[in-house]
């Protein structure tokens, strides 16, 4: 019995460390699947629960980040499928949401370009934003992203390049517009 308790404590500690390290990344990704910060945090919690049970049959250790992103996506899809009425309501307000609450920490980058870039990332199409999030902040390879999203790795790489190009163009456009006004 004492052995099992000791094992349980060690497992909980390992998972806690994994969560402390990756929680912000999960939240950032989940934010793309929910309209509110609270909703995204619920999604993260549900994902942790599902992954715990999934990993329990595979040694009990914390999962790869790619699997975690994939699970968030699965939970997000499930959530939207279960309530179509709510989905319609959410879709109507999704572009009015202020993502600053969780998207990126404004305290850490207060220069103009960082803010513009953050806003541009928020405006990316969800499928581009997912790839950017997993690649930049999840440090996943295109192969891992492909597995998580269920698409070919080449498509991931294309979306990534397209997203970077789109961000560069948008950044340029916004900067030029601001300078014209000034």
């Amino acid at each position: 019995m004492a052995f099992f308790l000791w094992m349980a404590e060690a497992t909980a500690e390992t998972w806690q460390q994994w969560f402390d390290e990756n929680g912000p990344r999960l939240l950032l990704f989940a934010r793309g699947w929910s309209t509110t910060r609270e909703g995204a945090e619920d999604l993260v919690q549900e994902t942790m629960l599902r992954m715990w049970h999934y990993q329990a049959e595979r040694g009990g250790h914390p999962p790869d980040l790619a699997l975690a992103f994939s699970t968030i996506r699965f939970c997000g899809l499930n959530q939207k499928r279960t309530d179509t009425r709510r989905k319609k309501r959410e879709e109507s307000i999704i572009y009015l949401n202020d993502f600053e609450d969780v998207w990126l920490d404004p305290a850490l980058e207060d220069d103009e370009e960082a803010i513009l870039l953050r806003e541009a990332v928020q405006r990316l199409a969800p499928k581009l934003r997912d790839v950017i999030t997993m690649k930049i902040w999840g440090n996943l390879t295109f192969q891992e992203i492909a597995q998580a999203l269920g698409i070919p790795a080449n498509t991931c790489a294309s979306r990534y390049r397209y997203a970077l190009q789109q961000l560069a163009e948008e950044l340029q456009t916004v900067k030029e517009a601001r300078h014209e006004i000034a």
Partner: protein
Amino acid sequence: MKSPEEIERSLKRLVPPPLSEKAHADVSAMLASLAAESAASATHATAASSLARPWLSRLPASIAAALVIGLVTTAVWITMAKDPQPALMTQSPAKAPLVAETETAPVLIDRMSVTDGITVEGTLTAADGSVVHEVKRRVQTRERYRDAKKGYLITISETRDEKLYTPKKGF
């Protein structure tokens, strides 16, 4: 216009913020609760495993019985070789059961507990000043029995709500 590489570098400078304190505490409490649950399940599984394999617990006795039978057989064979007597032949040790007959009662095969949902209902302050999370969880327990005599596989499922109090770690 900036190159994609420059955009990539700029993006990497942006840091995702952490979860809110409450969400972080909720997940931490959930992990502690799940770990405690898995420890309890492992204990049950060990107990169930010994129940499901009754022959395992009888193995030492069976080995001892086999040794005794072997010794008796040898003794009988030596005695018969010296002075063959029909009376001794009737005490054939080969007819003695090596293993007890299979039990007729259903045998527990496995036992599994699954958490359906976890809700952190808040925090409480204990008498000693320590802060604990009040966690409500719904647990489904499933037990499977095999009735060897009738050939049935019996599954018993039970759902219950539990309240757990786990110490709050960190802030």
